[in-house]
């Protein structure tokens, strides 16, 4: 049905307007919210949102389920940790290098994935994650093994040292906003359309001239670039990283964020990231029981709202259990009338 009072052009502008308003609210938040813990949660959310953008591009828009995504996040973090601590490379250099190294490795990993179906892409990338962790844990001379790298220096940007919670809040918010705009624009274009075509029906897309191999490589490389950048921010933020920060559980958390937010929705990535960063703090008191909550939320999501919070209805189809029950009820009502 839709809003009849909004013309098509205004409809597109409407979502841009909402995003703009949200951004301004986020900019103003530290002036209202003084609680350092809340600021910390939001900063973490922004960093995770950037990783989720990358995953959204690869999985939500292109259909490749990269279960080893934490590896690229970790690659970015380690690159920044090493360059900043050992070589004094400035912020923008580290940010760029983290993205580039993650992207190059992403490119290489994507090549065997091109011919494979979704399940095997998941396997290959999980295997890569294990390789990454094995290297990091054992290459003591460079990565300091299981102890990780600590005392990562704070970034100095245009002469100002970013060390306070508020500083990082604004830094990560800015990087997230710029990433969001760049990725939204790409997705709205021919590239984004063709990627979604590949997701929905690869052979169908190829039959109308879409170069699936080249586009998949592009999506994977770009997605891992953003993961690397997020890793850079993460390393600067917590100043000490170790291999356990990038285990498989992180990959699944990122997936959960994307699924809950809605695969195929970039704003959904932010909401998913916020949900899985903030909500776990609320049930921290449940201690041991909270380990299964992420999984429980996923099950509920699949049952009642497979397209996530902001994803498109068509992505999930009418396959949720709630939908089936609704259909059955409607059928029964019809039969009762007759």
């Amino acid at each position, binding site marked *: 049905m839709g809003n009849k009072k909004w013309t098509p052009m205004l409809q597109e502008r409407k979502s841009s307007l909402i995003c703009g308003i949200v951004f301004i609210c986020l900019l103003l938040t530290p002036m209202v919210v003084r609680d350092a813990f809340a600021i910390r949660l939001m900063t973490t959310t922004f960093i995770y949102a950037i990783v989720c953008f990358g995953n959204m591009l690869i999985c939500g828009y292109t259909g490749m389920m990269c279960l080893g995504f934490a590896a690229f996040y970790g690659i970015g973090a380690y690159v920044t940790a090493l360059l900043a601590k050992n070589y004094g490379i400035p912020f923008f250099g580290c940010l760029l290098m983290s993205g580039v190294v993650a992207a190059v490795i992403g490119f290489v990993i994507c090549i065997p994935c091109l011919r494979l179906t979704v399940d095997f892409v998941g396997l290959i990338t999980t295997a890569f994650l294990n390789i990454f962790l094995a290297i990091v844990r054992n290459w003591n001379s460079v990565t300091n093994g299981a102890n990780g790298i600590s005392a990562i220096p704070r970034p100095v940007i245009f002469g100002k040292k970013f060390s306070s919670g508020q500083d990082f809040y604004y830094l990560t918010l800015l990087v997230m906003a710029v990433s969001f705009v760049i990725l939204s624009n790409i997705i709205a274009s021919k590239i984004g359309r063709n990627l*979604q075509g590949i997701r929905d*029906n690869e052979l169908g897309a190829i*039959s109308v001239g879409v170069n699936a191999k080249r586009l998949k490589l592009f999506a994977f490389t770009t997605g891992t670039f953003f993961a690397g950048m997020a890793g850079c921010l993460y390393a600067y933020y917590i100043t000490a990283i170790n291999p356990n920060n990038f285990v498989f559980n992180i990959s699944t958390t990122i997936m959960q964020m994307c699924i809950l937010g809605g695969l195929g929705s970039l704003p959904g990535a932010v909401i998913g990231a916020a949900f899985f960063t903030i909500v776990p703090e609320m049930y921290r008191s449940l201690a041991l029981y909270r380990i299964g909550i992420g999984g429980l939320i996923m099950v509920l999501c699949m049952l009642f709202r497979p397209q996530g919070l902001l994803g498109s209805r068509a992505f999930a189809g009418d396959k949720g259990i709630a939908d089936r029950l609704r259909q059955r009820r409607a059928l029964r009502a019809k039969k009762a009338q007759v």
Partner: protein
Amino acid sequence: MDHILEVEHLKMYFGGVKAVDDLSFYVKRHELLGLIGPSGSGKTTVFNALTGVYKPTDGKVTFNGTDITGKPLESMVEYGIARTFQNLRIFRAMTVLDNIMIGNSKNIHTNLLDSILHTPKYRKYERESKDKARELLSLLGLSKWEKEYVGSLPYGIQKRIEFARAVIVEPELLLLDEPAAGLNSKEAEELMEMILYVKEKKGFTVILIDHNMKIMMSSAERILAMEAGKELAVGLPEEIQNDPKVINAYLGGE
């Protein structure tokens, strides 16, 4: 060149299964060639072997004088060949307009920077593409579904959308694999009318696979009948209809 497509001794073997067994035929420019045969006779396999979904075991395929034997599917649009699929390969989670616009990608000449910055060049191509897509939607009576997600639309409309996506590619040769399958007789008639209208208007050459003999008789200019991967008979519709071999294979047609 009189013949837009020439197929010589095409063989498509899957191990011991001879799906297409030494098939030779030609297609005249601007004609509609019907391809009929009982299920499993190899019709869709011929399409797949022609368009690079499978690599032919043997044989030669010449399109407009160029040898395209075994060339991959992604190159077909460049050569000027588009196809539809028997089991609908549309993009269910996207709008009708997006589905059609994906077919028009080759006419959008923007690079990555244009896409990131939404430059004037990008806006111009997007607008042109949307206008062209909307024009085609209006021609095929699909305008009112423009913003709907394809996955939620009725089957008949989805078939029309897949046809529209192949049309916007603006090929010289259009391969249609059972476009009317699963439609009731009224929908099938409507679709065939549309196909013939578009064919005349845009000057396409069409190879049409269908089981419906009535459709074949009324739309095909020549018919190639297949059985078990081989040619059974080829000729005018009336000839095929009365050919004893065809009647035998089909037991009277529809």
